[in-house]
Structure formats: structure tokens, C-alpha cells
């Protein structure tokens, strides 16, 4: 009960503050509010094409102008995967004197050929679409995160419709840890390469020196694709890792 009162007070205070603030807001959809007409966002809209040659401004800002943020965003995903494995994964035998709670034996769900066959047909299409989303992220909505999540979801779909073991056969624990690390390393490796060329971290323009027949602007565009692929690898691996651990209580056996 005390918690309830506390909650009411906290929520009331927050709500009052928010309401107090709303009165000062620019109108919704105002193109000349400070945020919308500010120097930064105007710069992005006007110069993205000249700077990076990427039509999708969001991708350009995400992977280039604010690429450092995105690198740590990938790291956040990576951390989530490692954290869940660290918390949940049952590696060692349970220590003596520790009695885990007994779970109710759940009813076995019957094998359904329709679902299983349909998914076998759908999964390659999903994976192809995921790769398209990544590759076409420069020109249309999409990019490494979205593609990675979709690709990860395709493995999750395999795990749901048949079973976790057959999904793990395709994508074992060692493999997903490796791919997750490799993806994040690809991203930060781009940064390291630019450092080695003497430019600032993640200043992709300098990579035109090692890329065949590109100027600085195209080098940025290509590097963004490389970075997005790194993001995709990490996200794919970690999404599946999280599902595999959550669905099997960290045993990586059984599953849903």
C-alpha cells in the first residue's frame, strides 16, 4: 500500500512537471520550432547528399555524422547478449545445497506439419528480405539494425516452429558469440583503420585511399555499408542468443 501512495505521488509530481512544460512547447508540426529550424537539422537536410552521397538522411546521420553513437548502440546490443548469457546461462553444475525451484511440466505442443512446412518456405524469403533491407538501407528505410533484427527473427522462427535444437544446429552458441564479437569489431575496426591513416576516429573519407576508384564522398557511402553489415551481424547473433537463452532458461536445451 505504501508503494501505491509513493507511486501516486511520484506520478503526480512528474505529470505536473510535464504539464507545466507542455505549455511552453512549440505547436506540433511547426516547421520553425527551434528543433526543426535549428542549424544542426538544417545542415543534415541540406548537405547529406553532398557530404556522403546517401539519399536516406537518417542512415547517413546514423552511420556517419553520429557514427560514434551508433557504435555504442551496437555495443549496447552486444552487452545485452553477453549480460543475458552471464546472468542466465547454466554452464557449471548446480552447487550442492542449492535447490532450484521445480517447474511444472508443461504440456507438449503437438507437431504441426502445416506450420513447419510453411515456415520452411518462408524463412529463406525472410532472410533474403533482411539482406535486402541492409543492402538497400542507403536508399530506403532500413539498415543494419532492422535487417539484423529481421535476420535474427528468422532464426527465432525456426526455433519456435520446429525446435530450439535444430535452430542451434544452424547457429550454435560458439558461432553466435563469435559473430557478435566480429560484427562489433568490424564497426570499430573501421574506426581503427581511419585512426591508422591519421584521421579522426570514424572519419571514413580517408578510406578512399584503400578502396578502389573512389573519392572521399563515395568512400563514406561504402564505409557506411560496411558498418551496417557489422551492425547486422551483431544484432542477428545477439537477438537469437537472447531468445535462445530466454526460452530455455539458459540451458540451451528444450526451449519453448
Amino acid at each position, binding site marked *: 500500500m505504501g508503494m501505491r501512495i509513493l507511486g501516486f505521488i511520484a506520478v503526480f509530481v512528474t505529470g505536473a512537471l510535464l504539464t507545466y512544460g507542455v505549455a511552453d512547447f512549440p505547436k506540433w508540426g511547426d516547421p520553425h520550432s527551434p528543433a526543426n529550424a535549428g542549424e544542426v537539422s538544417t545542415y543534415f537536410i541540406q548537405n547529406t547528399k553532398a557530404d556522403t552521397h546517401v539519399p536516406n538522411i*537518417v542512415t547517413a546521420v546514423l552511420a556517419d555524422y553520429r557514427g560514434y553513437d551508433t557504435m555504442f548502440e551496437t555495443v549496447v546490443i552486444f552487452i545485452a547478449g553477453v549480460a543475458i548469457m552471464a546472468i542466465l546461462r547454466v554452464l557449471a553444475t548446480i552447487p550442492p545445497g542449492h535447490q532450484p525451484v521445480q*517447474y511444472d511440466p508443461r504440456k507438449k505442443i503437438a507437431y504441426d506439419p502445416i506450420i513447419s512446412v510453411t515456415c520452411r518456405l518462408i524463412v529463406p524469403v525472410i532472410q533474403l528480405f533482411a539482406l535486402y533491407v541492409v543492402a538497400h538501407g542507403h536508399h530506403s528505410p*532500413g539498415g543494419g539494425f*532492422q535487417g539484423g533484427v*529481421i535476420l535474427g*527473427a528468422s532464426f527465432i522462427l525456426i526455433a519456435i516452429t520446429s525446435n530450439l535444437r535444430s535452430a542451434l544446429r544452424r547457429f550454435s552458441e560458439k558461432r553466435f558469440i563469435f559473430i557478435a564479437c566480429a560484427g562489433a569489431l568490424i564497426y570499430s575496426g573501421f574506426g581503427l583503420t581511419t585512426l591508422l591513416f591519421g584521421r579522426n576516429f570514424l572519419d571514413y573519407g580517408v578510406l578512399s585511399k584503400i578502396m578502389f576508384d573512389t573519392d572521399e564522398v563515395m568512400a563514406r557511402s561504402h564505409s557506411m555499408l560496411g558498418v551496417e553489415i557489422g551492425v547486422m551481424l551483431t544484432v542477428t547473433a545477439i537477438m537469437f542468443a537472447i*531468445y535462445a537463452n530466454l526460452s530455455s532458461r539458459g540451458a540451451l536445451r528444450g526451449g519453448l
Partner: protein
Amino acid sequence: MIWQFDIIILIFLVITAVISLRVRDLLSASMIFGVYSFLICLLWAEMGAVDVAFTEAAVGAGVSAVFLIATVFNTNRRSSD
């Protein structure tokens, strides 16, 4: 950006949020939370934030609902409130 559409989605959003918190069956709550995510994804597409909408469709409505359901299956389906 069509404001009538916007207002309708926003009202549904509040309704689904309240329902997903009120339902005592956690599996239903997770499903309704998926609906909530999908509505909010619609809202963002409507506001012109296509990349955000795409991400939310994949992450919010897809994967995080699956994570919630996986946990609910492995723990308790009933909630006291």
C-alpha cells in the same frame, strides 16, 4: 501527416497500454503489448519517421513481444494484478 488519423491512433494507444497493464493473464498482456507496439509503429510511419517505424515493427512488435512470451512460458502465466 493526417491529424485525424493521428488522434485515432493515439487514443487506441492509450487504450491498449491500459489494457495490457490491466489484464491478469500475462500471455495476453504480452500480446496486447505487441499490439501497442504495432500501433505506435503505425503512428511513426504516419508522422514520417519511417526508419523508426521500421525498427519498432521489427523490434517492438516482433522481437520484444517474443522475448516477453518466452519468459512468460518459462515462469508463471498468472499475475495478481
